[in-house]
């Protein structure tokens, strides 16, 4: 177990270094920089930016350094937790990302929980009522659930929420709690605003996991040990929930590796549509503005989230299935 953890952590570090390299190159490669945009901005405001000033700025930000030098500069600072300065917003990246990444994590986790809590019972129902009308309906809904783009669902649900329920969308807190310190009331308030984005983010994964759950349960129900359980005289409910579902969870957890990127992607785009104060909107803004340190750091953090999620999934697998040994 310990060796497994150490090995996985080492691999994680390597992965993250690679990811940072790839994202650095990706984001740095295109011509033009945030500095150009900034200078344009100054010029547009009628400020006289001389070429000397430009040179000075370029030197200060190391714009014309070779790529490896820039990467090294950035990476050595990043290791100690300093991710640089946002060109565009004139703030340290740390401050900008700080709370947003937590909201992103929170929202993705909530969406994941939502997806599991819905997918398992629905998948079980669908599998145990195979080839009945409800099963057909669930099956078609799954397909549509995967087919509907998240941003569209966000728009439609937002429309319904604001139109029919009068819910304030696009915020995480009501006005009275926005700057209040954390309290139970604030938490409840957060939850009451969170359900909409969570449903939207989770729909895709829910549909997918329902499908996985149904297929696996059908598979498991044909296994000998399910008949063994029945031959003991156990009730159908126990047979399904204790003996069959437990075994069908294995592929479901394996599917987690596939749903996590979808969840994070969904979180990004839904936050943009709903204009939530999470990573999404700022990330895309940073990309468009070529605010590279900010963008890289976001991409890196989202990837780390994914890598950690995968590690947790592997550990969950070992917990659910005694045949899996962590070595």
């Amino acid at each position: 177990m310990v060796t497994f953890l150490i090995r996985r952590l080492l691999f994680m570090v390597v992965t993250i270094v690679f990811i940072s390299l790839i994202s650095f190159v990706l984001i740095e490669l295109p011509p033009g920089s945030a500095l150009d945009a900034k200078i344009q901005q100054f010029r547009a405001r009628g400020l006289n930016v001389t070429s000397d000033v430009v040179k000075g700025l370029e030197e200060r930000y190391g714009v014309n350094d070779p790529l490896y030098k820039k990467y090294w500069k950035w990476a050595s600072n990043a290791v100690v937790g300093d991710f640089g300065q946002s060109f565009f917003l004139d703030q340290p990246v740390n401050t900008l990302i700080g709370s947003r990444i937590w909201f992103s994590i929170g929202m993705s986790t909530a969406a994941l929980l939502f997806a599991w809590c819905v997918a398992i019972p629905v998948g079980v129902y669908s599998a145990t009522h195979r080839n009945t009308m409800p099963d057909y309906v669930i099956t078609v809904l799954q397909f549509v659930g995967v087919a509907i783009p998240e941003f569209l669902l966000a728009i439609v649900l937002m429309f319904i929420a604001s139109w029919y329920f009068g819910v304030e969308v696009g915020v995480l807190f009501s006005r009275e709690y926005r700057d209040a310190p954390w309290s139970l009331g604030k938490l409840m308030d957060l939850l009451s605003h969170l359900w909409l984005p969570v449903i939207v983010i989770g729909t895709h994964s829910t549909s997918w996991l329902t499908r996985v759950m149904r297929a696996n349960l059908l598979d498991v129900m044909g296994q000998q040990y399910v008949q063994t359980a029945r031959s003991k005289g156990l009730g159908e409910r126990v047979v399904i929930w204790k003996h069959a579902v437990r075994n069908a969870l294995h592929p479901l957890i394996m599917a987690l590796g596939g749903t996590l990127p979808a969840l994070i992607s969904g979180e990004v785009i839904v936050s943009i549509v709903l204009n939530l104060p999470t990573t999404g909107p700022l990330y895309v803004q940073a990309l468009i503005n070529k605010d590279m340190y900010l963008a890289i750091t976001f991409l890196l953090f989202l990837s780390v989230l994914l890598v950690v999620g995968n590690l947790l999934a592997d550990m969950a697998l070992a917990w659910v299935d005694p045949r899996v040994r962590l070595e």
Partner: protein
Amino acid sequence: MVAMTSPAAGTAADLDRDNVIDVRNLQVEFRTSLGVVRAVNGVSFGVARGKTLGIVGESGCGKSVTAFAIMQLVANPGVITGGEIVLRAREKAPVNLLTYDPNGDDMRSVRGRHVGMIFQEPMTALNPCYTIGNQIAEGILLHRTSDPAKADAMALDILTRVGLPSPSRLMTTYPHQLSGGMRQRAMIALALSCEPDLLLADEPTTALDVTTQAQILDVMRELQDDIGMSIMFVTHNLGVVAQMCDEVAVMYLGRVVEQAPVEELFDSPRHPYTRALMRSIPQLGAARKGRLEVIQGSVPGQFTKVPGCAFHPRCPDMIPGLCDVQSPRLLAANDDALVSCFLHHEPDGSARVSDVPTPGRVSPSSSSAIATPPAS
């Protein structure tokens, strides 16, 4: 829904004795999208109390389906469409199990408690997610006690009795950590944990090597005497039948064609199919160069319905105009043997006097009709 008796069926109950279970004219169909498969088509037999009945027959003749039908656990899309399964358990009034709802409490109280079952594949019969102890205690908690500590003690006891080494450690072991033989012992322990009246053993040793097989058979016999249960022992292996069983029922295409005490069946098989089956086992000391005989022809497709006796297309002694028109019934051949063949019974049920080939005798006509295997 369930035809209680069919006048056409002579049954094992004709042998007047104390049976734990009597299966009469059992019929099971699989309604697949490609057509209806009559997997069990009027099976009748009985298992005497405290004795072992072997069930033999070619692959696909419906042995497993019969066993599952007794448990009322026929897998989808199978349905029991007719017949009668009378269980005469201790501490329970005789009852036709088919009058119970397959999903009802009555049927569940029979499973595990009065009838236990062991499966062919020890590798897949135990749930990989739970410890052996947990899985055995689960049944005990259901039928014998509600005290978890007591249930664990009973589980430990039965694990000891099936001869597993260090049973207390096994309680907390997962199935994947055991060998096939150990798993099968654990499975036997599971099936016997509630001391059932009848054990359905569906090829319990097929997947094991010969030594392990012998050990498992020993364990089963010992526990049979201890508990005083009966066993329905499904197998392909006639050697195992000779070792284990008191009686044998031979099945062909969803029907019992012959039921007789072991020695009688081996010494003087009555049904042409049984005879062919006997000839197909290698004999120790028989001439090396002689080829093993194979039963002529092959099993008809599962969707085809053969008119008359199901075996007649392959039968060397087929009586034209009779065997391919009428179905023979399973009728008493003597005090403790039944056979379903027009060579032994007239269509009206009376014993056929003339023309019965001497049991065990290989008639010239039949020997020529039995094909030798093609040269490989």
